């Protein structure tokens, strides 16, 4: 089995807010991240897929296909968007705060079953170079 990783980047705005909590609770838990005018990051996404090397092509997965899948399923939806206001999985009422952890989980759900011939192994999202979250599909 080979693991293959493809990177992509997107730049998005977000803020942290849990509608079930009072304003004071939100400010206490989320601090500066609760600013409702939002703030943003250059995110780096690393998607790792696992599979067997095709004896003819020598590929686990066609990288061009994987690049197009990441572009279609993730980058075109997240890049230069406000995650809370423009991306359905983080919209008001979902209860899904767009933290780095939840972004990794949401991207996994977007990609699961969409990569032909390979199994999704890991989704890693860097919010900054010194902070990242990994999701392996564990429930």
């Amino acid at each position, binding site marked *: 089995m080979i693991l293959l990783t493809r990177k992509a980047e997107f730049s998005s705005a977000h803020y942290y807010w849990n509608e079930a*909590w009072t304003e004071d*609770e939100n400010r206490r*838990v989320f601090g500066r991240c609760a600013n409702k005018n939002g703030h943003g990051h250059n995110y780096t996404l690393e998607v790792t897929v696992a599979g067997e090397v095709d004896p003819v092509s020598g590929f686990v997965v066609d990288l061009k296909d994987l690049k197009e899948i990441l572009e279609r399923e993730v980058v075109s939806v997240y890049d230069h968007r406000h995650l809370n206001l423009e991306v359905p999985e983080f919209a008001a009422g979902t209860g899904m*705060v767009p933290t780095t*952890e*939840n972004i990794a*989980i949401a991207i996994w759900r977007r990609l699961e079953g969409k990569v032909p011939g390979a199994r999704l192994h890991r989704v890693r999202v860097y919010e900054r170079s010194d902070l990242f979250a*990994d*999701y392996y599909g564990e429930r």
Partner: protein
Amino acid sequence: MAAGVATSAGPKAYLSRRYRLSASHRLHTEAYSADENRAVYGKCNNPHGHGHNYAVEVTLGGPVDAGTGMVCDLGELDAFARRNLLERFDGMNLNTLEAFSEQVSTTENFTAEVYRIFQGFTGAKVVRVRIEETGNNSFEYAE
């Protein structure tokens, strides 16, 4: 976690945070003769020591809290790291510290030591520590 905020557990994820610290050390053990120390540790055995800019990457695993969307509170993690990692090791000579009084200050031993330290963090479970000693070598510890 804020008091009075109801929480429930979601899918399991892993959060990694990098900290930087600069320290000096010398690789040397009393178990070897002077010649053996030089033979084993080479330039790292220089009696006056040398130093590195270490990058310490700590990974914590746990269920993502349904309320906060987080594995653990990053502010609490940073405060713990400041108190127990940076204030203890940054700007220090590792060989003079209690952690290395009984063991050589290799980055292997340093990595295991940092893992033991983060086992004391109650916000989430440490599952891996990785330390880059230079851009060309790094060490990992996981149980």
